Structures are given as structure tokens and as C-alpha cells.
């Protein structure tokens, strides 16, 4: 491995291949812990450059250390410096001997066990966003080769891996100074990344306006001589390779790769024949073939009405839109393909339970069928945990769902508002009903005051009873063993919540979240939609906040 690392470095930094690099901009995100005098490497990026800026400040980019509310023993700094190519190579050679990454001799940072990762090529973002680009610098043009020392143990970074919220906060703080989105790539925490942006040429893959052919424009760096390249493009439509083209290019200019490929997304690459290295690649790109532009006329006359005492005025836009532009007619065959893709996508969403509509007529087994969908999701995604959030959650609901998780010691949580009488024994249900039904019947003001005082005391007593009864119901209904079950049920500290979600925390990726659309107890009984939530992180954070706020013993209902 040791020789490979330096070899790879030498290949990538070789003069005139990817660029004429002579400097590296080194940006280190460093954590300082109270308990240790040695800082911890959170993330290090070394960007190869030709020349260096005299204007960019070196040293700590943030004047004051970054602090996070939930990690009071940590502070963080972003440090920038310039190292020559030779100095960086020296660092790698030292790493080969000591297996410790030190940018300056004798000044070490705490790090996990580092090992060489595979060399990757990260194209510039196109229609989508390439995850690696979130931690690279200005990867907008031909792309970048990336050499990486991977922290395989992340032993110093447990505080971030255990709580993605901490990492997200740190990432947000870092972005106030430099655009490094480390929260999105928690698997790269502790890594040392070498970025070699391709500077030797610029290229543009595009569709020709004249004949719709796919072409590439290549422009070599003015200080370099043109080299032989192989340009390649493939067009993918409906998961099939619709077109493929490859040409050899010997000089700068515009070169046609293939005639009009029709519909589909495409991807292009440029291969340096002499140096056997990729010089450019695109992400999957889509081209706009048709455009619709609509005009709507705004009426000067507003709609005026009163709502809760305040006057509101709404600017009305005429509903008759005029489509004024259509570039290209869609072939009929492609419309049919789209119709099929739509049906397939709809079916796939249902299969993955990402969108299921429960609608009339409702059979007698509809509720159980809906619960089966929840159990399917628990089996599919619940390995690391499953959090159920429902104000009307009852003991039966919890047993009917979370108890079916096949994973041992998975972090399962249920947050209820106790808004429903728990389905315990008949005796316990009657007890609750009795407590709730007691109404004052005193007309004497003195006695009424006394009663109010008693009622306020009784409310607390009632709530305690409810919690006890709920716990009893869980114990009674669950009956048998709770083998390898790690479940905690809490009563929400906030009464004002109406959300119903099922959340699956993930160790390294974004959490997966489903909106139930209704309470568990009425799933499948009335019209609702079970659907996966985009940006589940926000729901995850909201649940965690409320869960933490409900951590007092009085909120604990049941714990396995």
C-alpha cells in the first residue's frame, strides 16, 4: 500500500498531465477537546493548484473557535495553509513510515486508522448533485481526481456519528467560512482528501443547435500542447443505451461525436491516450427538448375578505393561461413510453411503500392490511431503529407495529400524547372513564373553588393514572417475552402535536421518514395516504427535540 500511495500521488501530480501543480491549498477542520492537548482531524482537504493566492488569509479562517451547544467540551477551527508539492509529498512519505498524517513534522493530530482509498474521479455537478463535490473545492469544470486517506475506525469522532445533529450543526458553522458540507458525507469524517482538479483542458459536451448532434468542445490550456484524446458519449433512455459514440480527437476545437440521439440522458468522457488517464467526465446530463411558457394576466381588482377580524386582500390572477412557446413536438412513441414509465413508477412506489393510498371501499381486513405495510417497512428499514410518533398512540398500536420488528436491540421509540384511552383490560378502561367523567355539581362559589383546587390536583393524578394504565396495558397485552427488545415509550412533554410519523434512523445516511397520514389506530379505516417524506432529516430533528424534552421520569410510560 505504501508504495502505491506515493505512486498514485506522483501520477496525479505529474507535470502537464492534469495541470501544472506546484502548490497545495491545505484546509483542515480541526476539533479541540478539553481532555486532550492534541487536536482531532475532523476533515482535511488538500487542493492541488498552480501558483497560490496572496490575498487568501492563512492561519485560522475563523477568528473565534466554533462551539456547538450539544458538545460543550469541543471547539473547532478551520485552518488554511499553502504547501508546496514537495512538502506534501514529504508528508506522504512520512505517513508511509509512521502511518500518521502530519502536515508539519512533529505536529500530529488525533486520527483513526488511516488507509488508502481507491482513487476516484468526481465530475462537475450537472442535473444532479454528486455527493463528493460537497467536500471538494470549486469542482465546476472538467472534474477532479481524488486521492483519499480513509479513517477506517473514526475512533475520535464518535460524538458526531452517534448524533448526526451535532455533525449537521458543525457543518453549518463551517459553511459560514468555507463551503464544505461535511454533514452530507459523514462517512468521510476523519479523512484526508487530495483533490487534483483537471486544469490541463476545458471541455463542454453539448447538443448542436444546427443538427441536434451531440458534440464536444475541447480547449487545451494555453501553455500545453494538444494531445490525443478519446471522446466517448452514451445516451441512456428508459434504462437502455439508446446511442453510443466514440471519436479520437487530436486538437482543440468542436468535434461531433454522434448524430441526433433523440431522447434520454447522456454522459461523456475524455480519455488521455498518452497518459492513460481520464481528463474529463460529465455527470448524467439531460437536455431540454421542449419548453412551454405560459402567460397569466393579473386582474387589478383584488378579492377582499375578513378573516379573524383582519381584512385580507388577495391579488387575483386570471386562470386562463396562454401557452406561447413550444419548441419541439414530442414523438407519439415517446409519449407512450412516458405513460408506461409513469405506471411503472407508481407501482414501484407502492411496492416500496413510498406512496400508498388507502381508499374506499374498506374491507374488514383493511386496518390489518395497513398495519402489514408498517411491518413491511419495519422489516425493510428498521435495523438501526424505528421511532413511532403519534398523539393517539395506544398500547395496542405499539404492539401491533413496533413489536413486529425482527431486529434485536434496534433503537425503538414511541412518543404518544395519551390522547386515547389505552386498550388495556376492561377494568382499567372503566377506571379511566370514571376519573374523566367526574364533573362538578356544586353551585356554592366557595365549594366550587374548593372543587377546582381538587380538580387541578386530580388532573395530575389522572395523568399519572393514565401513564400507569398505559404501561399496564402494554404489559398485559404483550404478555410473553420481550426478547432483545429495546423499546421506550414516552408521553410527549408537549400536548400540542398532531403529527404522525414513522422514522428510521440510519447510521451513516439521512434518516428515512414516512408520514402515516392518520393515527395508527385508524390506518386503513378511512381515506389517507402513507408516503415517504422528502428531507426526512427535518422531521427526525423535530422528533429528537421533542423526545429529549420528554426525558423526565414523569414522561416515561414504559421501557423494555
Amino acid at each position, binding site marked *: 500500500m505504501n508504495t502505491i500511495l506515493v505512486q498514485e500521488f506522483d501520477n496525479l501530480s505529474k507535470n502537464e498531465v492534469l495541470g501544472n501543480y506546484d502548490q497545495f*491549498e491545505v484546509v483542515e477542520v480541526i476539533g479541540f477537546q478539553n481532555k486532550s492537548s492534541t487536536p482531532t482531524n475532523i476533515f482535511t482537504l488538500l487542493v492541488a*493548484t498552480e501558483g*497560490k*493566492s*496572496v*490575498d*487568501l488569509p492563512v492561519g485560522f479562517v475563523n477568528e473565534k473557535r466554533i462551539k456547538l451547544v450539544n458538545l460543550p467540551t469541543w471547539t473547532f477551527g478551520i485552518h488554511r495553509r499553502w504547501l508546496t508539492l514537495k512538502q506534501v509529498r514529504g508528508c506522504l512519505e512520512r505517513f508511509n513510515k509512521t502511518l500518521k498524517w502530519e502536515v508539519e513534522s512533529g505536529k500530529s493530530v488525533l486520527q483513526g486508522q488511516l488507509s488508502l482509498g481507491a482513487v476516484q474521479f468526481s465530475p*462537475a*455537478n450537472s442535473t444532479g448533485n454528486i455527493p463528493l463535490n460537497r467536500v471538494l*473545492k*470549486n469542482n*465546476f*469544470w472538467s472534474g477532479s481526481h481524488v486521492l483519499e486517506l480513509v479513517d477506517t475506525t473514526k475512533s475520535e469522532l464518535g460524538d458526531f456519528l452517534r448524533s448526526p445533529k451535532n455533525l449537521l450543526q458543525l457543518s453549518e458553522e463551517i*459553511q459560514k467560512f*468555507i*463551503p464544505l458540507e461535511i454533514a452530507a458525507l459523514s462517512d468521510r469524517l476523519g479523512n484526508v482528501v487530495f483533490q487534483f482538479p483537471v486544469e490541463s*483542458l*476545458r*471541455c*463542454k459536451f453539448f447538443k448542436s443547435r444546427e443538427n441536434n448532434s451531440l458534440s464536444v*468542445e475541447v*480547449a*487545451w*490550456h*494555453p501553455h500545453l500542447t494538444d494531445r490525443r484524446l478519446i471522446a466517448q458519449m452514451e445516451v441512456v433512455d428508459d434504462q437502455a443505451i439508446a446511442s453510443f459514440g466514440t471519436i479520437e480527437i487530436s486538437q*482543440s476545437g468542436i468535434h461531433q461525436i454522434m448524430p441526433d440521439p433523440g431522447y434520454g440522458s447522456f454522459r461523456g468522457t475524455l480519455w488521455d491516450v498518452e497518459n492513460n488517464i481520464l481528463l474529463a467526465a460529465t455527470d448524467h446530463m439531460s437536455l431540454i427538448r421542449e419548453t412551454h411558457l405560459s402567460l397569466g394576466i393579473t386582474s*387589478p*381588482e*383584488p378579492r*377582499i375578505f375578513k378573516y379573524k377580524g383582519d381584512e385580507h386582500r388577495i391579488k387575483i390572477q386570471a386562470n386562463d393561461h396562454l401557452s406561447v412557446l413550444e419548441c419541439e413536438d414530442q414523438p407519439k412513441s415517446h409519449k407512450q413510453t412516458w405513460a408506461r414509465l409513469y405506471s411503472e413508477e407508481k407501482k414501484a412506489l407502492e411496492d416500496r411503500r413510498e406512496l400508498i393510498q388507502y381508499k374506499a371501499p374498506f374491507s374488514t381486513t383493511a386496518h390489518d392490511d395497513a398495519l402489514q405495510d408498517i411491518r413491511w417497512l419495519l422489516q425493510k428499514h428498521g435495523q438501526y431503529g424505528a421511532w413511532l410518533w403519534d398523539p393517539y398512540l395506544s398500547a395496542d398500536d405499539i404492539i401491533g407495529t413496533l413489536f413486529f420488528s425482527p431486529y434485536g436491540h434496534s433503537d425503538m421509540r414511541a412518543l404518544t400524547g395519551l390522547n386515547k384511552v389505552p386498550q388495556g383490560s376492561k377494568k382499567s378502561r372503566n377506571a379511566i372513564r370514571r376519573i374523566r367523567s367526574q364533573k362538578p355539581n356544586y353551585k356554592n362559589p366557595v365549594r366550587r373553588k374548593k372543587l377546582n383546587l381538587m380538580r387541578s390536583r386530580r388532573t395530575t393524578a389522572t395523568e399519572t393514572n393514565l401513564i400507569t394504565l398505559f404501561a399496564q396495558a402494554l404489559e398485559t397485552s404483550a404478555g410473553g417475552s420481550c426478547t432483545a427488545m429495546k423499546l421506550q415509550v414516552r408521553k410527549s412533554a408537549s400536548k400540542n402535536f398532531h403529527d404522525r410519523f414513522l422514522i428510521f434512523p440510519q447510521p451513516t445516511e439521512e434518516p428515512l421518514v414516512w408520514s402515516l397520514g392518520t393515527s395508527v389506530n385508524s390506518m386503513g379505516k378511512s381515506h389517507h395516504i402513507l408516503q415517504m417524506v422528502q428531507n426526512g432529516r427535518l422531521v427526525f430533528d423535530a422528533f429528537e427535540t421533542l423526545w429529549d424534552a420528554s426525558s423526565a421520569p414523569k414522561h416515561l410510560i414504559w421501557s423494555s
Partner: protein
Amino acid sequence: MTAFFKSAFKKAFQSPRSIAPDELINALSKTEDPITYLQGDWANFPEIRDASQKELGHIDICRVHLLQGSDLPPELGTQLAGTISWLLKQIEAFESHQDNSRMILAAIFEVCARLSQISAFWTYVPRDKISPDFYQVMHDVLVRIAHSNSDAGAPVWERELMRSVNEADSNERWSVLSKHWHAFEHVVRPHCLFSETSRFLYAQDLNRLIQAVDGMTTMWDILHAVQHLTAKEKLHLASLSKNARARFLLVQDTLFHFPKSEELNDQQSEYLGKTLTKVMACNQEWDEWMGALNEYPVRVPQLQETLGRVLANGEYAQLCSYINAISLYPHHNDCRLQVTECLRAFRNNASLEKRQELWRIAHDRWERWDFGISTGSLILTQVAWSQIDFAVMGYFLEVLEQSELEKLRSEFHKVFYNMQFEWYAKEVDFLHTYYYKISRFALISETSASVHEWSLPTSYRVPFNPKLDRYSSLTFSA
């Protein structure tokens, strides 16, 4: 037209008989108020319309002949001379206390309205042929104008608009009035009585017209009185008026209706200049004028050259007001061209000291505005310009020392080089920064090329040749 009327008047004085519009007078006599029905609700009195057409239609035919440049048939000339002869006799003998005076007045107006369509008829009427009573009546007509609005049943937006307009009028907020001008000015349809009266007074007794207009307290009354005057007449009246409301309305109305492709003639320009000079003496009034007429200078292209000349004598506050009123956009547009025309006239007329003062004010605003990126979420995707670029160029050329300018120019390459080392979250941020830097330096680099001509740059220089250096072009999406 002058020759035509001279000839017509000559014939009228020599005419053996005057031709009275008897049928028209007869028809008018059947109405309660003959003046009300003039050019108005003829649907209820078709008799008046028919009589007018029958007895006065020959005036319109004369107008058509004149427009076509064809000779007037002799019988038509005789008829016209007879009508004018009758008109002159009526004006000379007019006595307001006579029983039929309103009827006669109505007939006079009907004839004059048609004659005024040909040219400024009243200027050819000899003063000694006008009775004192006629003068007085004409003056009284204007003084008694009282416009009233009724918004009953109108849509909400219209009611609110009129409320806003009336408020702006009473508070002398010309900038607000100007904003709504296009929405309400067509509401005013002056009766031919007012139009002819103001035409008559302008031709025969300008002081009485000024007196009448200066005494008006709402914009509606003023518009009724002056809207049918010619551009020259309005600008002349504005230059003489002591009423701030009348001054603004006369100029605004003139410029609003002035054909955009035409220029003011020397006399119109002189009147406008006098008015602007008068307005400039009052800072508050000047601020309102600038807000009304100078926010989007493309709306008033005829104002620019004169405004530039007047600004040459402006004080610091007035120069600030001028620059600050201009609405700035980061694009090259017609407003930019109009401001340039104004500033070019200013440069040609102002002293170096005054020029430097204005250039500094403009440069300060340009710096504060900073292409609007600091105040909004604007992302530059092309080189940004500003409407006051000419003044900013002036700053570089006439305020900065040559050495300072050279220093700025030399910084360009350094800034451009260092740009690549900055961090950008997205490519669009990189391009924004690129275009921002280019925009900041575009004028500085152009000033060297146009030092004598001061031509307004519409293209920009980049530190590479986009056609030859494709590498840089692809880097900067140029």
C-alpha cells in the same frame, strides 16, 4: 395654415354678407342650457347635431382640402368667409346681459371648435373686434370650472386609485401622481367650452389665462382648462405660472403626450428650461419633480437635454436629488441612454467644478448601489451596467488623478487572478463573482478608449480574447 386664415379673414372682412348658422341657433334655443349640449349628448338632441353638420360642415371639408393640399373650391371659400364674418360680428357685438347670449355663445363655440381643428384660429382675430363682455365671459368660464368625481359603483381598485391620486394632488406629491398618470389622465375629457376658452385666452389675453389657472386648486380643474392647448402653449404657460401644481401638470401633460420620436423645438425647450430653473429654486418641489420625471427617464426623452443644461447651474442638493431619483438596474436599457443624453448636455454646459461635484455624487451612489447585489439576492449572469455609467466615467476621467486611474486599471488583473483561488459553493456563485468583478472594472477599462468621446460602453473587455482563448471562455462561460 397661416396663409389660409389670413386669406379667410381678408375675405370675411370683405364679405358682403355673413352667413349665420340659423338652424343651429334655432335647435339650441329648444334646449334648457344650450352650452351643455355642445359636442356632448347629441343622442338626446340629434337636431343640434344635424343643424351643426349642415351649416358648419363646410369648415371640416376645408380642413380636409388643406390636409390634402388641394385647392379650395371658390364656393367653399365664400361659405367659410361668410361664417367667419358672422362669427366676428357676434364676438364684436357680444353682450352678456342679452337674453339670447348663452345661445349665441354656444353657437360661437361650435364654430370655433371646428375652426380650431384647422389651426390656432383665435390668434387671427383682431383684438379690437372683441367686445369687453366676451373677454369677461371667457375668463369667467375658466374660473368657474369645478370638477367632481363620483366613484359610486366603481371597482375597488379604481376607487383606491382615485383616492390615492386625489391625496397626492392635495399634498403636492407629484412623484405619486406621475406613477398613476397613465391610469387616470384619460378620465379628463375637457368640454369644448373649456378648450376654446383657454385657446382664446392664450391667444388674446395670456395674463387672464395665467390668473385663472394659477387660481385653480385641484389638478382636475387645471387639466380641464389646459389639456387641449398645444405643447408650446402648455410649456409657455408653465414657465409663466406661479402655481406649483399648474407648473407640474402642464409639463407632465405635455411630455406624456409628446411623440416619443420627436424632439422639442428651440422655443419649447426654452420654456421648459425656464420652468425647470424656477422649480430648482425650491428643493422640495425639485425633489418631487425628479421623483416624478426622472425615476425612469425613458418616459420623458424630451426632458433630458434641457434638464442637463439646467443642472449645470444646480446646487449640491439638486444634483443629489437628480442622481438619487434615477432608478438603477444592472442592465443596459433606454433609461441608460436617456440619462446619458442628459449628462452629456450637463457636461457641455457645466464648469469643471460643477461636473466634478456631480460625478462624485454619482460615483458615491454607484458604490453604495453596487449593482443591487448587497440589498437583494441578485445573481449576476452577465456584465452589469448602470443608468448613471456616464457620470461614473466622468468620475474616473475628471475626478481621479491619472495615476489613481492607472492604479485601478492595474488592479484588474490581480483581482482576476486571485478570483480563482476563492471558494465558491456553486458554479453560479463563481460566475456571479466573475461578472461582478468585470462589471466593476468595465467602465475603468473603457474610459481609456473613450477619453475624448466619452462614448457610453455597451460592451466590455475581458482579460482574454473569447474567440482565440477558448480555454478561458469555457472557464468563465463567456
